[in-house]
């Protein structure tokens, strides 16, 4: 904001700074000169060697998430969640570095809206795992439900098993890696980022894809509207080799024989937009 006086900000002209906000709506303004604004509110320094265990068996979702936040506040950098019992919305909204180890399975919306933590889940996850994830890494040892990684903006989301339909729907960045098969409409309206499916994938892959890349190791049932196949490059192969190694995917894959899917840009074409509009659209 160099060169612009505070009072010249458009938001001042709109009266947003004087307006008394009521209810749950609040507006926080970012000022790059204030160092604390580089961190999320309530993001604490944690020690990864400081470890705590939570038994989730008798706790409800809200109590569990509160407990995780309390432990983070106390500086615990490694939290183990036992007996999650496929409960919904566990581990959501963690906006900082943390090692979260889930011994069991999560239900719907597990570890949604996270920014930074490394999460390991020994079981399965239900629908919409890691929805809206900004950064960090999530590794699931077994299968995942539908809408896996919906609208993620960054980070690595890895499922070693198979996933349901619409994985990576509306994703805007980051990487989704699936060790097994994926269902219909994978990458539906995907806007950026990469999806890697080591096994087969269902119908309408990449339907209405804006941008981004999808790699498939197995069979593709059908491509969606505006999804087109393109040639694999040496760069792609190198990237896949490195990425799948980091993702701990054991499956033997001939990367050069994978299929690469991108947008045909007939349906939605960012190239026709001005840079500012393009940014706004994403």
């Amino acid at each position: 904001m160099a060169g612009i006086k505070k009072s010249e900000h458009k938001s001042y002209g709109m009266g947003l700074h004087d307006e008394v906000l009521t209810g749950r709506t609040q507006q926080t303004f970012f000022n790059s000169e204030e160092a604390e604004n580089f961190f999320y509110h309530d993001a604490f320094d944690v020690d990864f060697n400081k470890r705590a265990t939570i038994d989730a068996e008798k706790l409800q979702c809200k109590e569990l998430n509160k407990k995780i936040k309390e432990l983070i506040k106390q500086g615990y950098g490694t939290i183990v969640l036992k007996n999650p019992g496929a409960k919904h919305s566990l581990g959501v909204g963690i906006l900082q570095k943390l090692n979260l180890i889930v011994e069991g399975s999560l239900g719907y919306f597990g570890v949604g809206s996270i920014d930074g933590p490394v999460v390991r889940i020994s079981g399965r996850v239900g629908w919409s795992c890691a929805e809206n994830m900004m950064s960090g890494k999530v590794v699931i040892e077994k299968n995942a439900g539908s809408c896996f990684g919906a609208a993620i903006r960054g980070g690595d989301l890895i499922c070693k098993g198979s996933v349901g339909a619409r994985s990576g729907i509306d994703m805007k960045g980051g990487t989704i890696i699936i060790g097994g098969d994926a269902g219909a409409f994978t990458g539906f309206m995907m806007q950026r980022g990469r999806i890697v499916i080591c096994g087969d994938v269902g119908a309408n892959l990449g339907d209405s894809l804006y941008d981004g890349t999808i790699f498939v190791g197995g069979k593709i049932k059908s491509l969606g509207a505006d999804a087109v196949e393109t040639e694999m490059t040496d760069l792609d192969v190198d990237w896949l080799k490195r990425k799948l190694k980091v993702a701990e995917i054991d499956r033997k894959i001939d990367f050069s024989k994978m299929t690469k899917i991108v947008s045909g840009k007939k349906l939605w074409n960012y190239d026709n937009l001005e840079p500012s509009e393009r940014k706004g659209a994403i």
Partner: protein
Amino acid sequence: MCGIAGLIHKGKSTNVGGEMQDMLQSLKHRGPDSTGFALYGDNDSKNYILRFKVGENVKEGSSAKNEDSKVYEKRKDDVNSEITKVGAEIIEEKRITPYSFRYVIKTKDDLLEIAQKIESVEMTEILSLGRSLELVKDIGDASVVAKQYGLSNFNGTHGIGHTRMATESGVDIRSAHPFWGYPFSDVSVVHNGQLTNYWNTRRALENLGMRFMSTCDSELIAVYIANKIRKGVELEEAMKSSLEDLDGVFTYLVATKDKLGMAKDHMAAKPMVLYESDDLVALASEEVAIRSLLPHEIDTYDPYEGEVKVWQA
């Protein structure tokens, strides 16, 4: 939203009533309006079990019109009379609530005539008529309905159930799931989703002589399957063809005397989690329902789009 659940024990009989109650109670948040059970019990297979209602539950939250409960007695007498008229015999008679009954009857295997006669009585609807099927549905959550109808210790091999969030039709027993595959013995259906070609398909089935009791789109699946069975089509084939003939987003479960089946539409827009072991298959809209039976870590997965599966008891 609605929640559906089902389970089948392979080669053994157990407390399916209690198990289904636990599963459906775990899905209460998906549908608080009404709960229904289709349980397949250990009957002697000689006689038929008839579950029917002669009125609606008019407690708070119901969209049914209030009636003087005295009419229930009159309607019940009329039903008894109709049963006798077709040459059937009432072996056992039990009133469960003021408006619903459980009978054991002896009748011939073609159930159409007796079903038509019973339903000719005003406000009377057969919930189920079968050798092992007992279909119970009412307003309230699983615990309320199970307690009201004494289902907590129901022994059997398999069952399906539903928790309903009323969307396109009223909060009443008539629109609650499961639906019986009228007029075929022991066929029941539960559904989660919306059918978008309901009226066209309904009119086509009505022209073939099939009967509808509600305007709930889920009933269409039961009638569709019943019509296929009438034509001699196997259950699995009937379910596969439903994926082409029914339009919309849906996941549904069908149960017969010794089978449990599931089907998921081509969009896979409605959830279903499946657990399968050597002696048990359990499936539900959410894994928490399966965990109510099996609290330890288990391997589950989501069936894919266009998938049809059938298991034998």
